[in-house]
């Protein structure tokens, strides 16, 4: 598993390649399917175009939640390898916010586990986004859906 935070911009594909290559030969030969999700910062357009994001987190709790989400996902689907990495700090448009990926024997498990990682992080992991816009304004992003309490 590759699970954790990144404080600076990173490319997602080498991370996915590393995770695939970190499996031993038997694990790799058992994997027929890998689904990988990459979330990136969108800029939008016009005067409210977002020029920068600040991604705040709760040091300690955030890492713990990411690890729990990863291990829960591994317990629920027959996963052989998993990536769950989230960016924190100052983020520019186009930079990677999250990489979630799951490797499994078959595609159903890989797709389901990857989607589960993405949704669970979004709704449970303690991250907060503040948008800085082209017109100089800034605002905390408000959640569309409340997290569980």
């Amino acid at each position, binding site marked *: 598993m590759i699970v954790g935070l990144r404080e600076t911009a990173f490319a997602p594909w080498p991370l996915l390649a590393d995770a695939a290559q970190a499996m031993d030969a038997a694990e790799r030969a058992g994997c027929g399917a890998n689904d990988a*999700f990459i*979330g990136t910062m*969108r800029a939008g357009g016009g005067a409210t175009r977002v020029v920068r994001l600040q*991604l*705040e*987190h*709760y040091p*300690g*709790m955030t890492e*713990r939640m990411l690890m729990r989400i990863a291990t829960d996902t591994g317990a629920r689907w027959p996963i052989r390898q998993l990536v769950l990495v*989230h960016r924190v700090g100052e983020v520019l448009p186009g930079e990677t*916010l*999250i990489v979630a990926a799951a490797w499994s024997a078959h595609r159903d498990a890989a797709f389901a586990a990857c989607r589960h990682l*993405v*949704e669970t*992080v*979004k*709704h*449970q*992991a*303690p*991250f*907060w*986004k*503040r948008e800085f816009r082209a017109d100089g304004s800034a605002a*905390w*992003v*408000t*959640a569309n*859906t*409340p*997290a*569980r*309490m």
Partner: protein
Amino acid sequence: MITVRFFAGLREQLGRDTLELPSTATTVRAVWARATDQAPVPTHLLAAVNLEYADFDTPVADGDEVAFFPPVTGGAA
């Protein structure tokens, strides 16, 4: 002592990110009241005790860390 932490928009509204309370507050609800001078509880406020999500009735003891924060907004578009 109980350590209280605030995050994101809540931290900005309250104008502080952390404070220490004497350990007389016995639940998350009591910690909120004590730490904010009885401020009304924001809609969808979340809380954690010792890095785990907690509800307002969760007991709090000496040495605990209690955090309050708005709904989370990480992840993907």
